[in-house]
């Protein structure tokens, strides 16, 4: 790979990729793969499917790059493609997910284990149990650093709804975390 490409500014990489430069696109893939995979995993709760969705998003982005006019940030554009790919995939497998939920498949360990686990793992575990809309909104806001406006545009929901989803998600997380680990533990681990 061209050594200069690794340090090239994002705008230059995007225009070169739009003109068909696969090496430049490879650098963008390296830069964004972690964020896209993590975002997909938070939305889909399945590592294999998250990886497939993140890969599909990047392939879609490559195909659509000649039409990217730079009206939004490249990252926001990429997150939008990833979000839509994940949501579409989630809709396709909805019956399977409902079956798992109906059978009471547990994704977490016993409460005692929580104290010994990394707090971020506990938080991710609780985020993964939020309703789909809440989980998506809280992920886009906190993890992807998007504003209420951007999330509303991406999810095709009114800004008030997005804000309400994020507020309720935080309220649920707060209650569940306090129940699971208690305030003293929460405070201790979170401020480390």
């Amino acid at each position, binding site marked *: 790979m061209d050594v200069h490409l690794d340090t090239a500014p994002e705008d230059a990489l995007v225009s070169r990729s739009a003109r068909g430069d696969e090496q430049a696109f490879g650098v963008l893939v390296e830069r964004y793969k972690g964020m896209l995979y993590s975002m997909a995993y938070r939305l889909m709760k399945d590592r294999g499917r998250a990886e497939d969705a993140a890969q599909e998003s990047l392939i879609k982005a490559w195909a659509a790059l000649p039409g990217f006019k730079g009206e939004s940030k490249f990252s926001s554009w990429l997150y939008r493609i990833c979000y839509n790919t994940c949501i579409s995939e989630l809709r396709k497998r909805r019956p399977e997910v409902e079956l798992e939920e109906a059978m009471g498949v547990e994704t977490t360990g016993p409460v005692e284990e929580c104290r010994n686990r990394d707090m971020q793992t506990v938080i991710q575990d609780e985020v993964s149990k939020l309703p789909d809309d809440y989980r998506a909104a809280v992920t886009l806001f906190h993890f992807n650093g998007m504003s209420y406006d951007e999330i509303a545009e991406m999810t095709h929901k009114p800004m008030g709804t997005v804000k309400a989803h994020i507020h309720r998600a935080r309220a649920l997380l707060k209650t569940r975390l306090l129940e699971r680990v208690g305030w003293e533990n*929460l405070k201790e681990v979170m401020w480390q």
Partner: protein
Amino acid sequence: MKCEDYQGLLQDYVTRQLDPARRRLVDAHLLECADCQRELAVLTALVSALDHQPVSEPSAAFAEKVLANLPRQRAFVPSPWWALALAPVLATLAFLFRTPVASALSRLLDRLPNVPVQLPSFTASQVALFVAVALGFGLLVSAGAAYWCWQVWLRD
């Protein structure tokens, strides 16, 4: 305002989404309310943890798989705007070649067996104009449809 009202504002206070006037109100209340101070501490800790969630790395072969699966040729997607620009070009071409276009069309009409109605006679320029409008409109509709399909594919 009661504590519940202030606590309803605390999430926006922590994420700095509160306007300055309400922020000052909350600041003043926090100075004298231990319950709200505790609520603020919990929310601050939670928001901080949510903001600093770690980025997970996909499998080692991730980037390689993406690059190996890139389509070698990108699909040509006509934009409705290009079609809009092409329509007058086609109209001009049809007007310039109005005589051969009109005679080709009348030969075609002559071959149709037993046309039930008497077609009015058009001049070559009129026929060329109809053809140009039909071509331009058809092109615009097809490009719009292709562009819409492309957007749907991107969304899904």
